[in-house]
Structure formats: structure tokens, C-alpha cells
């Protein structure tokens, strides 16, 4: 719409009385009668089916996902607005939490919360005159595998992330080595693993070793979900990763700011992912500091 000259400034907004108002229960307890007859409900069950297939293909599961849950929690511990700000997570906490729909434990699931988030998008030209240094959209890619989880044969990868990531990098004219940090749609820990894998950060099934040693944490070589993400900050669908990428590039993140404060690289380029359905839709966005 901006490109067609139909409008100049677009606001994208999210608002949900997801916890107090019961809104997120509808995502979790979503009942399709002919599946519910078998006891199958909502997002957790659907993603659990995807994650189990990946465990079969890669021979690993929670031993990879624990690094994602714990790593992102460390970022939330630096973010006063994050729901889990005051709650550090140890490996005992991760494995000791109750199983929800196996293979997922409690901390494999994102937050259920009330709240909202919004961003304003405009042309690079108009952005120059505004208050903050802009976060420029360098690249964008889309792909939609679409099949319902019960008929999906891509859940252990390649998901939509593979094509979408490639297209975004091509538009941006960069490679993975140019990426300073990632903000990855993390409705579940498993989603982060399969997305980064499909983007090419590590080979199939090699996630466990890639995440080990604090890779995604403060001080790590590839920070991921630096607000805490949907897992530990708050769930606002794609606006959680995108708003954090923007704030980091604008240099406005306080104690969690990428750079010397967190013993990480000062970010020039951040890669974001957004998902729809159960791995049915994927968007990859690459932002750079303006």
C-alpha cells in the first residue's frame, strides 16, 4: 500500500485481553468437533505433533529446547517490562515443570497475557525527518506451506522458513554472516529451533550443539529474542519479534541493549521471523539500522 502510494503512514496494531479476558484460552482450547472427539485441542497439541516428528527425524528434542527456554529467560531477566523479568530459570526448573502435551513441558510454551503493541511504518524518505533513527526494512520473504498439521509432512523442516529466509536475504543482498541478532517467532521453543535451522544457522539436527554454551544469551555470539520473546516477555504474535528488532536498532533497550552493555555486538542488522497457523505461513523480515 505504501509502495502503491495509497497511503503514507501505516500503523499495525495488536490488542488482546488474552489472559484476564479469556482470549488466549480460545487459541489453546480451540475445538474442531471432529478432532476434539479424539481429545485434540488447540495450538499446543498441534505444535506438539510437529515437534515429536522432528524428535524422530533428528534424535533430539528437549535437550535442545531447554537452551532456548533458559536463554530467552536470561534476556527477560534484563527487561523490566517482561512478564518473567523476576523469574530466572535453571535446567532443574525446565525439566521439573509439568508436561502439558508431551513432548512439551510448561516452559516450552509462550506466555498467555493481556496487552497490546503497535508499530508505525512509512517510507525511508519520510522516516529521515522523524524522532528516532529508523529501522529500515532491508529484505522480506514469504512462504505458505498451508497444510493442516495432521496432513503436513514438512514439520521437521523444511518449513516455510527456508524459502522465506532465502528470499529475504536475497532482497537484502546479504548472507547469514551479516546478521547480528535474531528475533524469532517463538510460540513454542521448538518453533525457534526449526526456524533457525531452516534459515541455515545450523544443519539438520545440529541444533543441540549450536545452542549449547549460551549462543543465544546475553554475551552470546547470536542473540535471539532479546526482550525475552513470546516465551518470557509477552505474546503479541509477530509484533513481539518485530518491535524488539526495531527498538534494538534504535538503541532504546536499556539494560538489555545489544552492544557493550550485554557483551554482544552492537546491532546493524537484525533478522525477524513471523508465523501463522501451525507452521502454515511464514514471513522473514530483515531490518537494518537507519
Amino acid at each position, binding site marked *: 500500500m505504501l509502495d502503491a502510494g495509497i497511503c503514507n503512514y501505516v500503523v499495525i496494531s495488536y490488542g488482546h485481553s488474552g489472559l484476564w479476558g479469556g482470549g488466549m484460552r480460545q487459541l*489453546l*482450547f480451540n*475445538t474442531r*468437533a*471432529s*478432532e*476434539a*472427539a*479424539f*481429545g*485434540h*485441542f*488447540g495450538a*499446543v*497439541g498441534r505444535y*506438539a*505433533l*510437529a515437534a*515429536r*516428528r522432528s524428535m*524422530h527425524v533428528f534424535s533430539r528434542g528437549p535437550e535442545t529446547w531447554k537452551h532456548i527456554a533458559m536463554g530467552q529467560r536470561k534476556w527477560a531477566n534484563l527487561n523490566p517490562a517482561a512478564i518473567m523479568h523476576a523469574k530466572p530459570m535453571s535446567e532443574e526448573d525446565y525439566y521439573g515443570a*509439568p*508436561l*502439558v*502435551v*508431551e*513432548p512439551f513441558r510448561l516452559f516450552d510454551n509462550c506466555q498467555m497475557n493481556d496487552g497490546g503493541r503497535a508499530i508505525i511504518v512509512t517510507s525511508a524518505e519520510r522516516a529521515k525527518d522523524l524522532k528516532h533513527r529508523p529501522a529500515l526494512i532491508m529484505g522480506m520473504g514469504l512462504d505458505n506451506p498451508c497444510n*493442516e*498439521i*495432521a*496432513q503436513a*509432512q514438512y*514439520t521437521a523442516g523444511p518449513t516455510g522458513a527456508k524459502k522465506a529466509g532465502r528470499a529475504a536475504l536475497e532482497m537484502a543482498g546479504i548472507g547469514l554472516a551479516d546478521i547480528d541478532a535474531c528475533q524469532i517467532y517463538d510460540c513454542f521453543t521448538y518453533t525457534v529451533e526449526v526456524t533457525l535451522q531452516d534459515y541455515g544457522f545450523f544443519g539438520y539436527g545440529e541444533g543441540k550443539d549450536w545452542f549449547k554454551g549460551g549462543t543465544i544469551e546475553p554475551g552470546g555470539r547470536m542473540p535471539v529474542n532479546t526482550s525475552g520473546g513470546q516465551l518470557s516477555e509477552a505474546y503479541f504474535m509477530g509484533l513481539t519479534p518485530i518491535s524488539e528488532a526495531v527498538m534494538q536498532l534504535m538503541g532504546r533497550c536499556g539494560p538489555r541493549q545489544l552492544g557493550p552493555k550485554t557483551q554482544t555486538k552492537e546491532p546493524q542488522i537484525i533478522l525477524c521471523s513471523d508465523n501463522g497457523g501451525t507452521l502454515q505461513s511464514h514471513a522473514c523480515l530483515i531490518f537494518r539500522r537507519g
Partner: protein
Amino acid sequence: MSAEKILPAPDADSKPFWDGCREHRLKFQQCAACGEVRWPPSILCPQCHSQDTRWMEASGRGTIYTFAVYHQAFHPAFKGKLPYVVAVVKLDEGPMLLTNLVGRPPDSLACEMPVQVEWDDISEEYSLPKFRPI
């Protein structure tokens, strides 16, 4: 007082499938143009878009494509059944069906295990196809 249960909701596309289930027969649409056996049911073939369809009967054999074990009750009707297993079974004829696995403890299950259909008559009108490892 019988426990609350959830019944399937047949529609115009799926009614023949559920009618077959009541007779303990696993029936699917097969495209008369290209031979693809499809699920979910639909007016046209997702492969070739032909609307020329006939119904075939599947053998009831397949393998576990994936599964998940419910440890929390997402609906009161299932509270008494925890833990229970929801699975996707890939039938020998091609369709992938959302179902339950029965007859084995959850921690003995693995993807690719061969399975066979068995029937759970949940009401006079409805029987659910469930699968047991063989």
C-alpha cells in the same frame, strides 16, 4: 450418569466417512481421474482438481507418522482419560488421519511403528477409528 463426551460433527463432505465408521469401514474419496486418495474430504481432488470422485475402502493398516501425549485436560470430557495419545497415522493408501493410539503405554510408542485400526463405538451414531500398534 454417563461421562460427557464430544461427538464428531459431520458435514456434507465428511458424512459418508462417518457413515462408514458406523459400519466399521474406513472409507475415503478416491479421485477417478488421477487415483489420489484424499483426506480431508472435499468436492475436488487437491492434486488434479477433478470433481470425478468415488469412495474406496481402506485396509485399516498404516504407520505412526507422529503422536503427542496429553497430560493436561483441555476439556472436562477427557480429564478421566489422562494421559492419552493423539496421533497422525499415515495409512498405507496415502491419507494422513488424526486419531488416537491405544493398547500400548505412551512411552513404548515410536514414529513409524505399524498400526491397525480398531473401532471405538462412542454412541449409537458414531464410531471412532483408533489405531493399535501391531
